[in-house]
């Protein structure tokens, strides 16, 4: 990656769009110091990530990945309670928070709290993944193709619900995807990456009007997708 300058304002949902290998995940992982920059600096809440204690920084940033990465030996409740437990919250406070979050992500019916991840569907697992990221009420959320592995129907459902949730929670969100539909649906700003550089950015309303060839490439696949049958997705 080179020559990147990007400012994400509080409350924005910035979608990093690009092909595989364009550097979008790398950029995301720089934010919570899963990677460190070889040159340049990344500031989170006004402080360079290398100045932050990495553990403290990460506990203050929600993180959702493809396939959710839930702990198979933890129940749903224990998964969601991860960061609060690490932060040594009192048990009643954790329990109340878990209930609240299950409600928030639409898993309040039944006894989801006591189930294990393997007993859930892909969509339910991803909901738990979102709940886990929100557990300690972080101001920032990082999401790396969170809905990428879901079937198209479930994906559309979660995208819609998450869009509504994001608006309501007013978090600062950085969201990685290669799916233009998803970007248009969720973003307040789309940032397009190609070969480790930012090549275009803009609000979803006028993003597609841009002349950059990579924008055109993404736009054209939107056209063909609309005319042909809309397919599940490249990364299943």
């Amino acid at each position, binding site marked *: 990656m080179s020559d990147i300058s990007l400012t994400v304002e509080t409350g924005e949902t910035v979608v990093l769009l690009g092909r595989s290998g364009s550097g979008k995940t790398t950029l995301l992982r720089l934010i*919570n110091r*899963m990677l460190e920059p070889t040159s340049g600096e990344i500031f989170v809440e006004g402080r360079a990530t290398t100045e932050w204690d990495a*553990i*403290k*920084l*990460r*506990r*203050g940033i929600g*993180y959702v*990945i*493809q*396939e*959710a*990465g*839930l*702990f*198979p*030996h933890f129940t749903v409740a224990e998964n969601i309670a*991860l*960061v609060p437990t*690490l932060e040594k919250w009192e048990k009643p406070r954790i329990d109340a928070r878990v209930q609240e979050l299950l409600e928030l992500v639409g898993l309040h019916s039944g006894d989801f709290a006591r189930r294990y991840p*393997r007993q859930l569907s892909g969509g339910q697992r991803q909901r738990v993944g979102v709940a*886990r*990221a929100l557990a300690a009420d972080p101001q920032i959320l*990082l999401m790396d193709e969170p809905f990428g592995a879901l079937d198209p129907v479930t994906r559309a459902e979660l995208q819609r619900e998450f869009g509504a949730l994001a608006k309501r929670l007013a978090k600062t969100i950085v969201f990685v995807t290669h799916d233009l539909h998803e970007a248009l649906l969720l973003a307040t700003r789309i940032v397009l990456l190609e070969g480790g550089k930012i090549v275009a950015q803009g609000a979803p309303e006028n993003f597609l009007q841009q002349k950059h060839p990579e924008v055109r490439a993404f736009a054209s696949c939107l056209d063909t997708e609309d005319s042909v049958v809309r397919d599940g997705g490249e990364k299943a």
Partner: protein
Amino acid sequence: MNTYTFFVTHRVEIFSTTLEHVELVLIAVVIAVAVATPLGIFIVQRPALRTVVLGVASVFQTIPSLALFGFLIPIPFIGGIGKRTAVVALVVYALLPILRNTYVGLTGIDAAVLEAATAMGMTPWQVMWRVRLPLALSVILAGIRTATVITIGVATIAAAIGAGGLGTFIFRGVAMVSDAVILAGAIPAALLALLADGLLALLERRLRVS
């Protein structure tokens, strides 16, 4: 003398020898677990040492057991005639399966799970204790199971250096050219191996997280 009558007339001796055998195996396996598991955890964090450590353990495993017992006799402190030498040799044999399974179990964890653990703000220690170890437990236990079964077998040879155990009957039987006496050592040893294998397999299944 037929085998049945030998078993009946020597049942007390067979029983106490079996206990002696179990004791030998238990001590060796406990020590091997205490050495190999932390070592396995260590080489996960120091990949540079992995090849060396697993290599040395593999070489140990290739030494013929009777030869190993022989080599140990002249060595001071850990060697000599008797139980202690036998335990040292048995530990050497039990190391590899436990070490290898510990390593494989700890490294064979879904990358997304480890990524999430680190990205949510777990320290490397927390990732090890709360994520890697619990998820590797059934694989580590499978290694302990293999080690135990091997040790039960190899421990019969320990009688050659005066460590006692069921091998006493086997060596005596060979010297006397008596099947009955050989079987008095071999059958309990085989039963012990089956029992240990079954019990540990049961435990392993209960610990498995799919």
